[in-house]
């Protein structure tokens, strides 16, 4: 029994199902928030998979997702901002919960891996993930108010 894979499966299944529900139903504002939370749910799962399969190279996937996931959310935040029906909403409770999940996974992997270059990379991914998640939430809660037509 590989506990890391099990944990990754639970994070992927639970977070993925919740994000899928959010992204397919409800008003547009809620869907974008769910899209943002996808990154924070799947990225820890990818880190846990890398540990579970014993393949440090798989960490690159989590690195790319932590970098590009928030960029994708910024795309939606910016290009949906001109829509008349889009009201600004925020879900700070969920955002902080997702950030806590990312931090918990990164800390657990750092403890398991011990100090070294891998740990620096893990910490960088954690910073990118949590920072990107918070900034994307901030952008959704009215980061592009002055953008009209651009």
């Amino acid at each position, binding site marked *: 029994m590989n506990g890391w894979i099990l944990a990754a499966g639970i994070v992927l299944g639970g977070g993925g199902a919740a994000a*899928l529900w959010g992204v397919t139903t409800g008003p547009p504002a809620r869907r974008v928030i769910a899209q943002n939370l996808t990154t924070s749910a799947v990225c820890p799962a990818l880190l846990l998979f890398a540990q579970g399969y014993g393949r440090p190279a798989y960490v690159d996937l989590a690195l790319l997702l932590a970098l590009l996931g928030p960029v994708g959310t910024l795309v939606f935040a910016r*290009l949906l901002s001109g829509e008349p029906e889009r009201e600004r909403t925020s879900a700070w409770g969920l955002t902080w919960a997702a950030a806590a999940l990312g931090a918990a996974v990164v800390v657990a992997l750092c403890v398991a891996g011990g100090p070294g270059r891998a740990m620096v990379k893990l910490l960088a991914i954690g910073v990118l993930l949590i920072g990107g998640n918070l900034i994307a939430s901030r952008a959704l809660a009215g980061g592009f108010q002055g953008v009209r037509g651009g």
Partner: protein
Amino acid sequence: MGGGDVYDAVIVVALLLVAASATAAVVQRDPARQALVLSFSGVVLATLFTVLQAPDVGLSQLAVGSALTPLLIMLSVRKIRRRGRSKEDTR
């Protein structure tokens, strides 16, 4: 290795998420909402490739699907909407 079933279980989870999200993306009518579901679908597809031990393909999917495809779709949507608006203005 013992407990090989957990390896298969995560493949099933990822497959189900991909199937559900891809169907949902087709069912949506509004292109902007489709782009949202598509970006979700791209991320879980990359995860499916990872659990099938194909990280190279997963990386390609992640690079293209998480930011580039939504940007291209949303820019096209914006262009079409703007065109519709300017036609209404001249009328």
